[in-house]
């Protein structure tokens, strides 16, 4: 992997990390409300997958870093957390619902497993349209226990759909350890009778990038679906209101010892790393300033986005 790409991956992981620090700080100050699922610790997966995959992306509520790595501006992501009009979803979505069709980024879904059938449908559309890049769907280990997941791997398999199922296995379904709710430690077991599966160290951004690239290559050849399981570790609780009591300090130490940013830093020129860090800190500061200064949505537009403009004519 060339230095330029390594630096890009490093920059986005760092940007994601500091973005989440900024989000947390502003949540605690009362500028951000509701749910806030921080991606701290899992940046390798979020950045590696978004940078490697060319096609459509469907993901979960833990999405800030993916949205940023996909190319959505940190200003509009931060403004969305603040619920402001310049937010990526104009304050209608919030932390868990960010979309950018122009970047083939389709959210941002807060129902565990609920977005997987949507990704399958989109993969069907791409196959029908003759577009070979396919669809990437990201979900956690917890989602692999729900019906939507099993229906989806079956449908993707029987129709040979161009879709990459990327399981982010951080071993916790909210606060419940995977061993209590799944028969398998590795969730790929559930998919392997339907499609080939791969496993990757989700704390290593280079490995994630390369594995996703390889998996997309498989899809592009028209082979149908593939399942990739990335073993990860989140440094924070499930959401900001989760005090993370269910993990021992020893477990957390082992977890943090795998810090993907520290791991990559060893391969980045020291001066470059330092200047990137300063750049990122400045950018986050600007994004927070932007979000603070952005206007609240206008109440007269409460219903504006419920339907298309044409549709609204029938309602108002």
């Amino acid at each position: 992997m060339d230095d330029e790409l390594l630096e890009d991956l490093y920059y986005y992981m760092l940007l994601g990390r500091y973005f989440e620090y900024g989000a947390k700080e502003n949540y605690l100050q009362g500028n951000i409300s509701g749910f806030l699922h921080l991606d701290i610790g899992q940046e390798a997966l979020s950045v590696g997958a978004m940078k490697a995959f060319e096609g459509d992306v469907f993901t979960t509520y833990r999405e800030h870093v993916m949205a940023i790595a996909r190319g959505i501006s940190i200003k509009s992501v931060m403004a969305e957390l603040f619920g402001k009009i310049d937010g990526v979803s104009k304050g209608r979505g919030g932390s868990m619902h960010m979309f950018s069709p122009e970047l083939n980024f389709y959210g941002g879904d807060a129902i565990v497993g609920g977005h997987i059938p949507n990704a399958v449908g989109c993969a069907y559309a791409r196959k029908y349209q003759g577009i070979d890049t396919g669809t990437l769907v990201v979900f956690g280990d917890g989602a692999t226990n729900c019906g939507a997941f099993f229906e989806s791997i079956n449908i993707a398999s029987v129709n040979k759909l161009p879709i990459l199922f990327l399981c982010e296995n951080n071993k916790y379904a909210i606060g419940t350890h995977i061993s209590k709710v799944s028969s398998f430690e590795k969730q790929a077991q559930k998919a392997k009778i339907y499609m080939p599966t791969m496993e990757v160290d989700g704390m290593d951004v280079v490995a994630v990038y390369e594995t996703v690239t390889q998996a997309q290559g498989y899809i592009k050849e028209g082979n149908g679906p593939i399942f990739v399981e990335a073993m990860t570790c989140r440094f924070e609780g499930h959401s900001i209101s989760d005090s993370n009591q269910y993990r021992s300090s020893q477990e957390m130490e082992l977890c943090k010892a795998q810090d993907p940013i520290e791991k990559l830093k060893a391969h980045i020129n020291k001066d470059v790393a330092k200047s990137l860090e300063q750049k990122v800190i400045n950018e986050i500061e600007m994004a927070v300033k932007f979000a603070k200064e952005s206007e609240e949505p206008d109440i007269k537009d409460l219903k504006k986005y419920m339907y298309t403009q044409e549709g609204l004519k029938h309602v108002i």
Partner: protein
Amino acid sequence: MLYREALNLAIDEEMKEDKDIILLGEDVAGVGGTFRVTEGLLAKYGDKRVLDTPIAELSIVGNGIGMAIGGLRPIVELMTANFSLLAFDQIINHMSKLPYMSASKIKLPMVLRMPQGVSKQLGAQHSENYENMLSSVPGLFVFAVSSPAYAYFALKKSIQMDDPVLFIEHELLYNKKEDFSLNEDIDPFKARLVKEGTDITIISYLKMLDDTLSVIDEIEKELKCSCELIDLCSLNPVDYASLEKSIKKTSRVVIVEEGHRMGSYGAQIISWAVEKLFYSLDAAPLRLCGENVPIAYNRKLELASIPTPDTIKRDIIFWGRQSGL
């Protein structure tokens, strides 16, 4: 033309025009649909556009949503509304909300068709009406069509729209016959004036509309009055303007529906009428609906759970006399 043929023609004409229209559902391709609505379409449009799905409603609707996100215009069929319960997460959390949550960045030009209602001894899990729940969901358009002409025009309109549409049919209407011209100018968002009258406004939709119409002469004769019968057609949004015009004329309002009394669709219409037109009313409104009970298999019990032509006639006459007609 039969009701099911009108639906078929609407789909056929639209599919011919636009290759982005995809049809999916259980048994819609090879079998041609449980109620024969999609008959012949597989042969015309091929298995890339007419898809038999697994019996997995969550995915049928969820995949349709994904297809729409991906730029297609899916027409999704659920075998019955009873099975839509398996897809409620997709219908409510995704289909109705994605456009709003994304500030219109995501468009869902899709139609979700499903028949509902008490048919004949299909048992509790195949006889429900869910228009009350589905019409209460912000972000969807909901049609419930009672006639072949409206089936044709409303479905065409639904397919052409860029918003998500729920299209409710009734299992006992598929073989209803009506001649109509394809050149008529019908706006399915407007309530249909089925019969003009001056003394009672009766509002209904789907099969109850026909059941009411079948006894309306007797009601008029008995009460020596004239009834105006209105078919809602669009359940969300409601054409309140047409209802208001009629109720202001008649000063009396009745709604006839098949669903359970608790939380019924008609409760909303009556509530609106009382809030909005209280001083125009000469009598307390009447709501005829199903009992609060699962639908039994036994035919006598089944019919006792919903309005029938006999009970519609009986109840409206009783109410009419009590209210001074």
